């Protein structure tokens, strides 16, 4: 069968055969070195000046196509023939493989064919397992979450990156898993929210048992056994979950608007039930199934329009007649006062707007507030024009961004948000304004990271940690191609320690993390001045 797909699933291959050259090679599993059969290889000829015509955009004609595709044979070999001279980008694709994150190197054909091109494909991994209950019975229909911890804007958060479920044998399988560190969590019975229209029993199902959420290796995230996935890892995660008596929670959602409603049951920081709900959109009646004994927060959200939340205790019996009232967003005033602002004609602002330029310090400063919800998937709310910020009732972290200025104090009523940026937005009540007091200007730090040994990545990162805890650390990139140079501006005057990292996945909002850092360079920043630092080692 080799000849069948040796060459051609073609997109324009034949009409590309206007030359005499051959471009051939093999596709290889980068982990094992084995050939990858039936991979789809695409050769894309980079446009030449002649192709460009008069404009900047290449205009291929039917007689002069830019790409061709071919499958590899059983030996992983691909071959394009009759190609014109030129520079070609080659890429390979195959289910359950990914191209390694290295730059594609164009292949040049000028005066001879090239038949020894090697394309690597990196295999993705699988995690398979079996879940049983304490009686040894298969845990069927269990939602299994693959979770990863990531750092965003200095905060550590754990996200569900894949959701699969067990079959009648208790077996689950997740594939195309990229390298990384994963936790596997059994999150209770899988079910999507169902709709019903009558006022009777929405389910009539005898769901009087439920699975206690648990992780592979332990009952909690802290006690769980992480699975480290390398390219092509076939990991196994067999574990047991407890079946316990479960109950139903019924009630009515009031103040319904339009849009889809999502219910969530939150225990501690974890959502423990989202889908096991029957909901009557006309009447607002809902029934949540398989709720185990415990203390929860019951939450319903209607898009980004409204939210309802209430504490819920389930203790040995069904919970009836709850009333949840959806509340719309609250407008929080944001007052910004920046002292020392320069007067600048409008016409000059644009010419000075290049960030980092010495002139930019002369631009009028501005500050804006952002509310980050507890849910990793939530979209942050940002103040527009410094006037108000719209947020649904709930708990948030306040982030402040200032340009050409630095915050001196941030407060919400009597709460000092520089010390603790957490706030709770309550429904209905007129909220106190977020008061931002800033000062125009600030100091700048420029410098470079110069290490004895070059790190693998293309970007390194510099973290400036102020000596006082009421100011946020600042993170800035340092690019290889610019000699590892970096700059940080609009810094509040004071002492800082600078640390170099090869990644931005650093938990710099965590005081404990900051306390453990070593290997930094100290620097003093003065208002309106520029300090220069060279960092020669990575932080520990």
């Amino acid at each position, binding site marked *: *069968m080799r000849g*069948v*797909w040796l060459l051609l*699933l*073609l*997109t*324009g291959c034949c*009409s*590309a055969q206007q030359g005499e050259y051959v471009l051939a090679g093999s596709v290889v599993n980068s982990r094992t070195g084995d050939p990858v059969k*039936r991979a*789809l290889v*695409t050769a*894309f000829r980079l446009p030449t000046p002649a192709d460009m015509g008069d404009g900047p955009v290449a205009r*291929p004609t*039917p007689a002069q*196509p*830019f*790409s*061709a*595709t071919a499958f590899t044979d059983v030996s992983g070999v691909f071959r394009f023939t009759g190609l014109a001279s030129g520079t070609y980008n080659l*890429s390979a*694709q195959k*289910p*359950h493989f990914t191209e390694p994150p290295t730059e594609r190197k164009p292949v040049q054909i000028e005066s001879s064919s090239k038949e020894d091109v090697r394309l690597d494909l990196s295999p993705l991994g*699988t995690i398979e397992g079996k879940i049983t209950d304490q009686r040894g019975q298969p845990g*069927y*229909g269990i939602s299994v979450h693959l979770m990863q911890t990531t750092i965003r804007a200095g905060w550590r958060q754990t996200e569900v990156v894949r959701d699969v479920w067990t*079959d*009648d044998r208790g077996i689950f*399988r997740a*594939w*195309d898993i990229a390298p990384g560190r994963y936790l596997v969590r059994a999150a209770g*019975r899988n079910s999507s929210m169902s709709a019903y229209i009558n006022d*009777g*029993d929405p389910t*009539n*199902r*005898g*769901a*009087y*048992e439920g699975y206690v959420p648990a992780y592979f290796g332990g009952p909690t995230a802290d006690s769980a056994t992480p699975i480290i996935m390398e390219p092509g890892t076939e990991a196994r995660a067999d574990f047991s979950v407890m079946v316990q008596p479960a109950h*139903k929670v*019924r009630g009515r959602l009031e103040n319904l608007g339009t849009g889809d409603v999502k219910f969530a049951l939150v225990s501690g920081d974890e959502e423990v039930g989202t889908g096991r709900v029957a909901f009557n959109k006309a009447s607002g009646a809902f029934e949540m199934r398989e709720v185990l004994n415990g203390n929860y927060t019951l939450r319903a959200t209607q898009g980004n329009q409204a939210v309802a939340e209430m504490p819920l205790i389930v203790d040995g019996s*069904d919970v*009836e007649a709850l009333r949840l009232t959806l509340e719309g967003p609250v407008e929080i005033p944001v007052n910004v006062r920046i002292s020392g602002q320069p007067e600048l004609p409008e016409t000059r602002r644009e010419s000075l707007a290049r960030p980092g330029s010495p002139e930019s310090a002369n631009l009028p400063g501005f500050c804006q507030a952002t509310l980050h919800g507890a849910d990793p998937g939530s979209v942050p709310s940002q103040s527009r024009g410094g006037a108000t910020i719209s947020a649904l009732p709930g708990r948030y972290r306040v982030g402040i961004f200032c340009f050409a200025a630095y915050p001196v104090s941030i407060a919400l009523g009597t709460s000092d948000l520089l010390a603790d940026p957490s706030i709770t937005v309550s429904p209905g009540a007129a909220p106190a304004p977020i008061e931002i007091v800033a000062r125009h200007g600030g100091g700048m730090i420029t410098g470079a990271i110069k290490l004895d040994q070059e790190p693998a990545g293309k970007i390194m990162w510099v973290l400036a940690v102020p000596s006082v805890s009421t100011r946020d650390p600042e993170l800035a990139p340092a690019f290889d191609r610019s000699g590892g140079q970096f700059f940080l501006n609009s810094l509040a005057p004071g002492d800082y320690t600078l640390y170099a990292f090869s990644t931005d996945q650093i938990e710099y909002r965590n005081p404990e993390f900051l306390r453990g850092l070593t290997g930094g360079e100290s620097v003093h920043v003065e208002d309106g001045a520029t300090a220069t630092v060279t960092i020669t080692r990575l932080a520990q």
Partner: protein
Amino acid sequence: MLPLLAAATALSAADLYRVAGVIVDSETGSPIANASLTLSPMDQPHAGMLTTSGQDGSFAFDAAPGKYNLMAVIAGVSQPFGQVNRFVGMGASVITGPDQDTAHLVFRWHRLAVITGRVLDDQGEPVENAQVRLFCSAVFAGRKRIAQSFQTTTNDQGYYRAWAIIAGPYYAFVTAEPWWNSQRVGVGGSEPARVYPTVYYPGTTDITRAALLAVHPGEEARVDFTLTAITAAKLTVNCDNCAPDAPPPARSRSLMELRVTAEGLGGTETAVAQRNVYRWPVTLDMVPPGHYLVRVSGTGAENPLVAERWIDVGAGDIAVSLSLHPAAAVSGKVTFKPNVPPPSRPLTVVLSPELNGKSASSTAGPDGAFRISNVAPGKYHVYVTGGPYYHTETIRTGDHVPAGGLLSVEEGAESRVEIVASNEIGHLKGFATRDDQPIANMLVVLMPVDPSSGFPNQAFQTDSDGSFDWPPLPAGDYLLFAVDDPTIAYADPETVKPYLPQAKSIRIEPGKILEERVPVQPAVK
């Protein structure tokens, strides 16, 4: 078999009665241990009691006199007590009280099955994300029809697993798209795309050769499929009169919708393409072989416009040209039977398709006039909703009564229907009997004598005491019979015909309760 009308077992001075029995495998009769059972009053479904069957399959509740719903749950799947076979889900209520023996119930549990297998391509590689569908042929709302009962997808190894399915015969088929179709990158794609034709069990792409796969209770059936990619056909659709400067009636600058629907097993339809169109013609370039309905619709100056045609797509490209015309509509008037007051709010007239398709509806005006536009051709039941107990008394199209009470809608035509509505209702209850003894799990069928009522046949599976007790029914003349097979297609005129000679003629009077005892007839096989 339920022992009926034996001595009641009163357990306490509080008038509790024992509901007990054994849950067994419906095929083997073996007791089933550790099944969860719930007993819920019919009028308070949330106030259920829970128990677990013992090692010998036994279970027991103590309940006040009343009517109860008894359910069993095994591995997350629930079945009602009295479910007669795999697809008949009515079940039978348990009646407790004096003179009722509910202490010796036999709960026949229908064991579930699994269909599993692997989908490979013609190179022996797994096909990921293939859609595997199971269709069953069963009685739904009294009519035998083919409908989808399960859908799943293959994993990265090409495996699928349809679990917790009801044992019985299934059609199984798989659809998929080659993975490389979504990877076509770069400029200059001029070669035709390739597609996988739908493959039906037992491995045919010819829908007429699709066969039923019999799956037995507890069985894990294995069905593998092989998909072979072929060159896809291009379907080019043109609309003759969709251009902005086209002559009436399609002189519309509004967006048109193109919808291509594949005809599947048993007349089921699956949308394969749907897009908004500004400019014609439109070419769809990845169409597998099949029988398709091409439909163009849009908004005209006054009425919805539509054009549709069935086409067969084979190996070659195909072009179809359509001309828009006003869509079919149904209009008419709702009046009321003498001495019947109109409801406080106008009624809504609903067209419900006889078999497959979408319902359509419109609320009548204060004068009773209604118009339902954009109705797909086909046969429809016509009924009214919106007021307590209001129902269609008679339906007429001109001087004619629609055959079988079904309104026939032709493409592009305007049908006129006169509806006389009423809210006169009565009650019907009684027992199905054999040798004059009530008998549980029989099917009692009620058929209106006057087809112009448009009221479809009704059925009731008798409860544990052999009784039936319908919710309020339109007053009128009916035929009533009972059959010992609850699975018959009771709304199909041909199916019920053999039972009519021995059916009882009854009249349900407004506001009255009619009690009947109906002898059970053996089912005609």
